[in-house]
């Protein structure tokens, strides 16, 4: 035996260590689950961490109400298989109760509204640790975030006042009302995620693989035609073979043209791509240079 671990097994071990550490030290953790590939991998790792027991914490979906129906079906089946309890925090509900106001105009979406819904749900359920599937390679503000990311009692992130993180010693101490966001996938890249999905044969929502879909072009990205998005003048719908690289709210997540209809073809495509997944598919990051940092400071995922 050569006592060597592959990079995927090293990453897996690190993530399991983090997940167990949180389960041991916090009273009320929860795991954010959207049905997106990163949260699917995170839930897979959590299931491994506690095998043969079930997840010792609930999973939570922040539901904007603007979903891909395939993803919601997938979410329910995946949670059912895990045996975990599902908490749904609804943006629709936040709008109805007047906590947030719906944006208007052709580019209206519920991206920013999710933060209030998320923070309300954290407070209401008294969650003290919230697992998120964010990765440092995704975005430059995220490249600077800790594995244990401290949030004050307003849920805010202060990038200039982060706790140094040494060895594998994580500091989860906090006062009542504060919480920690935990990112067990911090050191994974998009390619690592896909290779791991392939190796572990993890199920994903079908929209990650090439399929025919009615789309239109906006700001150089392809968006699905659907009930939550209004075509502006000059925008025309057409059919294309596409797949999604990220899965978020249907109103601001773009598709890419692709013939990759199997996991191996997706891995080959991701390995060769010259665009980041967020740059290629996320309207929400295009607002400004610091769009992600600004949302994160407010308490976003």
């Amino acid at each position: 035996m050569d006592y060597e671990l592959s990079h995927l097994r090293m990453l897996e071990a690190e993530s399991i260590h983090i997940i167990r550490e949180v389960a041991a030290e916090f009273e009320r953790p929860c795991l954010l689950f959207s049905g997106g590939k990163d949260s699917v991998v995170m839930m897979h790792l959590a299931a491994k961490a506690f095998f043969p027991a079930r997840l010792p914490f609930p999973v939570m979906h922040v539901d904007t109400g603007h979903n891909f129906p395939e993803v919601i079906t997938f979410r329910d089946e995946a949670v059912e298989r895990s045996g975990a309890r599902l908490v749904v925090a609804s943006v629709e509900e936040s709008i109805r109760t007047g906590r947030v106001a719906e944006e208007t105009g052709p580019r209206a979406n519920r991206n920013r509204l999710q933060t209030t819904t998320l923070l309300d749900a954290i407070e209401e359920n008294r969650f003290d640790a919230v697992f998120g599937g964010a990765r440092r390679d995704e975005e430059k503000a995220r490249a600077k975030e800790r594995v244990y990311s401290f949030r004050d009692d307003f849920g805010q992130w202060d990038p200039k006042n982060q706790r140094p993180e040494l060895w594998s010693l994580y500091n989860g101490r906090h006062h009542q009302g504060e919480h920690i966001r935990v990112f067990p996938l911090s050191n994974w890249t998009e390619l690592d995620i896909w290779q791991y999905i392939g190796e572990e044969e993890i199920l994903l929502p079908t929209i990650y693989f090439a399929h025919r879909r009615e789309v239109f072009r906006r700001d150089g990205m392809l968006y699905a035609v659907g009930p939550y998005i209004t075509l502006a003048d000059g925008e025309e719908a057409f059919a294309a073979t596409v797949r999604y690289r990220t899965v978020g709210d249907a109103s601001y997540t773009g598709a890419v043209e692709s013939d990759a209809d199997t996991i191996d073809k997706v891995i080959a495509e991701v390995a060769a791509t010259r665009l980041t997944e967020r740059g290629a598919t996320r309207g929400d990051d295009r607002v400004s240079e610091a769009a992600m940092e600004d949302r994160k400071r407010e308490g976003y995922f």
Partner: protein
Amino acid sequence: MEMLRLATAGSVDDGKSTLIGRLLYDSKAIFEDQLESVERTSRDRGDAYTNLALLTDGLRAEREQGITIDVAYRYFATPKRKFIIADTPGHTQYTRNMVTGASTADLALVLVDARHGVVEQSRRHAFLASLLRVPHLVLCVNKMDLVDYDQDTFEAIKDDFRSFATKLDITDLAFIPISALNGDNVVNRSASMPWYEGSSLLHHLEEVFIASDRNLIDARFPVQYVIRPMSDEHHDYRGYAGTVAGGVLKPGDEVVVLPSGFTSRIAAIDTADGPVSEAFAPMAVAVTLADDIDVSRGDMICRTHNQPHVGQDIEAMVCWFSEQAQLRRGAKYHIKHTTRTGRALVKDLQYRLDINTLHRDESADALGLNEIGRISMRTTVPLFFDEYRRNRDTGSFILIDEATNSTVAGGIILGPTQ
């Protein structure tokens, strides 16, 4: 594919960002939209050249002030290895960030400018890398193009650094003459320096032998979490979950559990993919024991004939991270060591170390931000520890301020107080 973690430190001036930019770009880890965004920002700011530092300096304050305020993690891969770079700034919060980045690094990359040679900052980098026991160190002599690729200049810098390095504990030291700007010896061997017979930097990073860096001798298994399924199927299952911190564990091994001292045998080593015949660092597994004994989080499973130190009086080097408070004799903190937590009392500050001269100031009565010193401490609970030089996982700890919950120090265990 193996994974290698490297820490780099330095300022923009010595070409570190250019070097990282080149490694990332040549290994296709920089994407077109990232490059376009950096080019656009550079243009808008009126920079004369595309500032690759903007790739890592993602925060608003960093872009506005042109500084790096935190450790940035970057990722790239070649067909041979996946690399994680912990890139730390050269100026503000230097020591704190470098110590953070080096704590998990397999290799430290120190850059010097060929025109200036070894300067104070290079010595500081090398010292911190040796203090944190980073097993491999590479000194890149950059900007060789500005000294006409002169071999004598390179050799002089090499000799100078070597004579300093003899004072440090560095096990593997390599020297590479490069030009990050032109790409000489970064990915490919340079045609401009035929006198250099070593590998290019990337080749060195791909080939440096890291498998022997881990401790495969002293079996250490800090119990992190107890898995009890409470289901009909696994009614009596008690799995002690944790990450192997050293040595090799096998089913059948005679083990002792600290602090109770009870002995048993490893019945099985479980993972979600099935039982394994051996577990070694850093595998995350669950151990079951042949006997029904009381084991909980914070306990340590090890071999009966090879046990760590058990004690409450410990000698350590600490690096202080807090701007608000100083470390003083008599102060108390929360301590986290492996999966164990307790409180620690600083009984004595023996000296403060000047990291530029390595001078020990025994008259010091406090440690301020970014200062390093030797302390004696007493903990409320016994810790199960090894010297840091023998095991980075069981030889390290953090101190946490009891009022603010900030992480105020990182500590390296020298041994038990005699």
